[in-house]
Every structure is written in C-alpha cells, then in structure tokens.
C-alpha cells in the first residue's frame, strides 16, 4: 500500500493518490511507526525508480534506507564529500552519513557518493550498501524531538567495499553542472514530497480530531453556519486549522494526482510539502495551546503530535528549500538567479 512505484506500474493509474491517502491514515496512527515500516522509505523508492532487472532481483525485497546528508551537506546535497572509487570488481566508499532514517532496522542503505569530485553534481551516484559490508558501520543513533519510534542514525564508511554492480544507474560521469544523472536522483524527491506532505496531514488530523473531541467535552460547539467572528476564540481557531489542513490536503492530492496522470509535478509537489509542513507545525502548536494543561502533559498525545509534526517542515527538503523550488519554477528562474 505504501510502496506504490513498482506496484503502480502493474495496477494502473491512481496509485500515488491512493498512497498519499493511505499514508495520511497511517500517520494519523504514528509517523515514527510508518517510517519504521519495512520497505517504506526513500531507499526503496530510489531502487524501484532506477534499478536494473538484475538489481531489482537482488535488492527488491530488501528494506533499504537512504543516506544522503553529511555533517557539512544538508540542504546542499550537491556538496557531499563521501567518495566512491572503483578498485577492480569493487567500489570503495569513504565518508560519513548522518540523519539516516531506519538506520538500524534496514537491511541495506542507498548511499550517495561522488565518483569524481571535479565533476560536481555530475559525479554523484548512489550505491546500495548492504548491512555487513566490510567497513560499513552504524556509528550511533540520534535522540530526537519527535518521531521517536523511528531510528535515525549515523553511518561511517571506512574503506567500505561493495560489489561493482551495486551502483544504481550508470557510472558515467557527465561533465556539465546539472546533469541528467543528478537530476534523476533528485527526481526521486518529486515523487516522495507528496508522501511526506501526507505524513504531515495524518499527524495534523490526529491532533485536530483529538482537540475537537476535548473541546466539545467542555462545551465547544461546532456549527458550520455561524459567522466566524461571533463565536468562541477556540472555535474559530479550530475552523481556521481545519481549513488550513484541508488546503494542505488538496494541494497534496493534486500533486499525487498529477503524478498518476503523467504530468510533471515538481512544483506542485513542493507546494504540497511547503504548505503541509508549515500548516502541520502551526496547527499542532495551536492544538496544544488550546488544550492547555492537556496539551502540555504526556498523558495524552497532543504534545507528541506537536513534536512529530515539526519534522515535516524539515526533512526531505526544509520549508525554505520547498519555497525555493516553487519560486524558481513559478518564476522561471535558474538556481543561479535565485539562490
């Protein structure tokens, strides 16, 4: 249900839309859990998207995490310094990867590394590194603000050796600055940004439903007829949150629907992620505020949703990066014109 790319091919259109709806439901439960779901995640999405038949055979059923970020390369994915060098029949990888989701539970990790630093983006490739590969070590797991059910870790690659065939896509280095190869890897994100947005919808809806229930217990009334200025403050806050959630949901559905219908959706995917990330963050903060003591205590889940929701504004491209993507595409600007 949550791994659309391979199955969608078989079952026809509409899978992206089905996926974002399913993800909202699952994250209404727990986002950390969803992220700890075998095979759910960027690693498998990348494999599904670009693996050869032979690679699909070898890795298709493995739970694969994705390792991009480095201590000095966050939003700036093009500046990664982990290297891969071909040595006979093996690639030798060296570097450090942080913020890897499902670092501990996964069976393999798709590691981004450069095979030619001079080539910039053109030299960046992704490699499937299976757990147990020599020189591949999970250094530590992070303690986080939220999504604590999910394990996030740091890997160190110290002369890590993997088979030559573990490279995803071609090993050819394109010398131009923005190559098809790098763009191909980045494209994975166009598909997954609506998924991340949907995670935000699930968290926000859970918080909102709980808040509504609790407010009704103490006399709040929700009547979609009355002028919003004559009602109680907490009631109007609720309506505004509901409207924002609905707006984020429709933007998310649209982006997924476009993917299902073969339309380029890079801008719309970023719109969804930008809106859902921000709306979810503000909405869960407000829910805690309206709930007062119930929103600050860990006895109920409102505080957890506030902690969880914040990640949607951050991972797989911060809100600022999403705005950059939207603005560049909407205005037709290059990354040099709008930095």
């Amino acid at each position: 249900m949550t791994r659309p790319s391979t199955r969608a091919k078989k079952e026809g259109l509409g899978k992206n839309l089905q996926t974002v709806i399913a993800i909202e439901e699952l994250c209404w439960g727990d986002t950390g859990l969803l992220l700890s779901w075998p095979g759910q995640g960027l690693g498998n999405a990348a494999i599904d998207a670009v693996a050869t038949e032979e690679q699909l055979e070898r890795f298709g059923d493995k739970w694969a995490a994705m390792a991009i970020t480095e201590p000095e390369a966050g939003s700036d994915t093009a500046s990664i310094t982990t290297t891969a060098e071909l040595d006979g029949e093996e690639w030798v990888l060296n570097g450090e990867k942080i913020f890897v989701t499902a670092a501990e539970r996964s069976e393999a990790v798709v590691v981004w590394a450069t095979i030619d630093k001079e080539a910039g983006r053109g030299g960046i490739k992704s490699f499937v590194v299976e757990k147990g590969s020599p020189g591949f070590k999970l250094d530590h797991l992070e303690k986080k603000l939220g999504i604590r059910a999910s394990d996030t870790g740091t890997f160190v690659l110290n002369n890590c050796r993997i088979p030559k065939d573990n490279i995803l896509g071609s090993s050819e280095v394109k010398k131009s600055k923005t190559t098809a190869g790098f763009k191909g890897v980045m494209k994975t994100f166009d598909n997954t940004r609506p998924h991340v947005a949907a995670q935000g919808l699930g968290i926000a809806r859970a918080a909102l439903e709980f808040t509504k229930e609790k407010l009704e217990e103490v006399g709040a009334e929700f009547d979609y007829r009355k002028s919003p200025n004559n009602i109680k403050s907490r009631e109007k806050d609720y309506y505004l949150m509901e409207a924002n959630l609905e707006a984020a949901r429709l933007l998310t559905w649209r982006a997924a629907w476009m993917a299902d219908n073969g339309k380029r959706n890079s801008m719309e995917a970023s719109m969804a992620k930008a809106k859902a990330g921000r709306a979810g963050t503000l909405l869960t903060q407000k829910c805690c505020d309206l709930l007062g003591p119930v929103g600050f205590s860990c006895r109920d889940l409102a505080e957890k949703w506030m902690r969880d929701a914040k990640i949607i504004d951050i991972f797989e491209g911060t809100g600022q990066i999403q705005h950059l993507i939207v603005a560049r595409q909407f205005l037709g600007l290059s990354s040099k014109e709008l930095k």
Partner: protein
Amino acid sequence: MIDFAMSKEQQMVRNEVAKLVKGVVVDTAHDMDEERHIPPAAIQKAWELGFSISMIPESYGGFGLKDSPVETALILEELACGDMAFALAVMLPSLFIHPIAEMGTEDQKEKYLPLYCGETYKPCTLAIQEPHVGSDPVDLETTAERQGKAYVLNGKKCFVPGAAKAGHMLVAAALDGENNLFIVSGDVPGMTVGAKEKNLGLYALDTFEVSFKDCAIPMENRLGGEDGCAYDQLIQKSRVAMAAIGTGVSRASLEFVKDYAKQRVQFGEPIVHRQSVAFMLAEMAYEVDAMRLMTWKAASRLEAGKDAARESYLAKLYTGEMAMKVTDYGVQVMGGHGYIRDYPVERYYRNGRGISILEGIATL
C-alpha cells in the same frame, strides 16, 4: 472519484469568459473604478454569453441546461480575475433568478423568471447582509410578520447590489425565528433605497442600504410558498461563490506582480532574485491554488447534490483570510508603486478585504 482536471466543456466555458474579460474588462477596470461606474454596454456583452440564465428552463426564457456550480465557480473566478465589481454586476440577476428557479413555487417561477431571462440585462437582486457589527446572515435582525394576507417586513439591509434599479429583489428575513426569503417589488411602499454606498472597495459597483418599515408584501411572495425555502442552501452557494471570487481577485494580484517583479530591477538585479520577494510570490502561488481547490471541492459537493455546509464554510473562511494576505503581498512586492492607483494591486487590496466581510452578494 477524485479528479483535478477540467472537462472539455468546463475549459470551453472558462476560455469564453477569459476572452470576454480580455476584451471588455482588463483595459477598462481602472477607469470603471475611478469613475465609479460600469458601462452598461460591457455588462450587456457579458449578459449575452448567457451564464446567468443557462440553467433556467427554456419555457421561462432560459437555455434549459444542467445547473453546474463548478462551472459557475470557474466563471466567477475568471470574471473576478478581471474585476471584482464587474463580476458582481454581471452576475447580479442570478441573485434573484437562481433562488426563484431552485426554490420558487410554480407560480413564482412563471411570474418572475420570464421578466429577467430575456435578451437584455435587467437588474434584480438579493438583500441579505445587515449593517450592524456582528451581523450574521444566519442570524437575521430583519423580521417578517404575518398580518392578515400579508407579510410585514421590518429591518435594514446593506451592500445590496443594484438595488436602486432592481425591478425585484429577494429579501432575507426571519419569520417566527426561521430564515426566509421574500419577493419584493422595487416600488413597494415601506421600502427605502438609500444613496449609493461608498465602500472600501468595489467603487464601480452600485450598492445600497435598503430599509423596510412596516413594508407589507402579499402572502404569495414568500419564496417557496407556505413551506418556505432552503435558505441555508442559498448561504452555502453564496459562500462558495465568494470563495471563487476571492480566488479570482488573488490570482489577478499574483499574475500582475509576477511580471512586475521579474522586470523591476533594483540593486542591479530583478527583485525576484531576492528570496524575500521570491518566497512571497511562491506563497501567493500556492495559496491561490489552495483557494481554488477549496472552492472546487465545495462546488463539487453542491453539484453532486450533497450538503456542503462544512465545505462552503471552510472555503469562504480560507479564501477570506488568504485573499487579504495575497493582495497585501501584491502591494508589498511593488513597494511604493503598489500604493499608487495607477497600478491595479491597489484595487485588489481594497477588494480583497471584501471577501470575508461581504455576505450574500454573489451566488452560484
């Protein structure tokens, strides 16, 4: 089935309206605003496209097509993207025609629809909003009281578009605590239409305060007869219509400043090269899309014959907030030039405030 694509027919309708707007609105909107007047010829041209009467049965003078709230939402966005005052003026007769067609008795339809479904635009209108702070279209202070064979109306309405020239208007009033609509002739004793209102926005649109003092109207003029009408449904349609208009006004601001900001050079580069400007434009872009999607969702429910209390409420609430934000950003992106009436963003800013405030001034 979730679908975000317009049908061929919907695209056609939208293109037709876009053509009209390009032809008779875009170049004249500024002057209409300055002169506080819309040329009747322009309105007549729009009238001839027949949107307001397409759903009216042919026997009453209409085209007998299926009523489509989604299509009307598309039309309203497009018109309002040209000019909000023009959009409201053009669609004005719908405020009277549509409720009669949908909720009137046979007699009422026969009597009133042919009067306003002819080839010439004839103003008829709807009076819902009341002028006091905290006024609420579902909590009316205007009352109707049964006295013998008449209903007697008392109360005050404001922002009634076209009231001075309207042959008839529908007036919302509470009868025994229930909201009802009454068909009122333009020359009925006890009704006073004030001078043309001056408002923050919509300079070109004629709106009026209308007072009722012991204004007696015949019993048969209660919309829907003795059963009354589905008043809440009118409110839902009115909210979605305003959401569509809010989307249009906001889109107009976005489109104007998008081009401006790409051309305006400061500090050696187009101002869109600055994140503060570019991010405002990005936010405007996705909020306009979100407004439209909220509108479409509510309109789709109405089109499917479902209750849209929640969706219409959220659509108006959201577009009300966002139209203000987007039109504010529009002025801000242009800086000093945005404050000058030579540029349309000044008008959009004033009109944008109307989306959340105005009630019952448009319908689907």
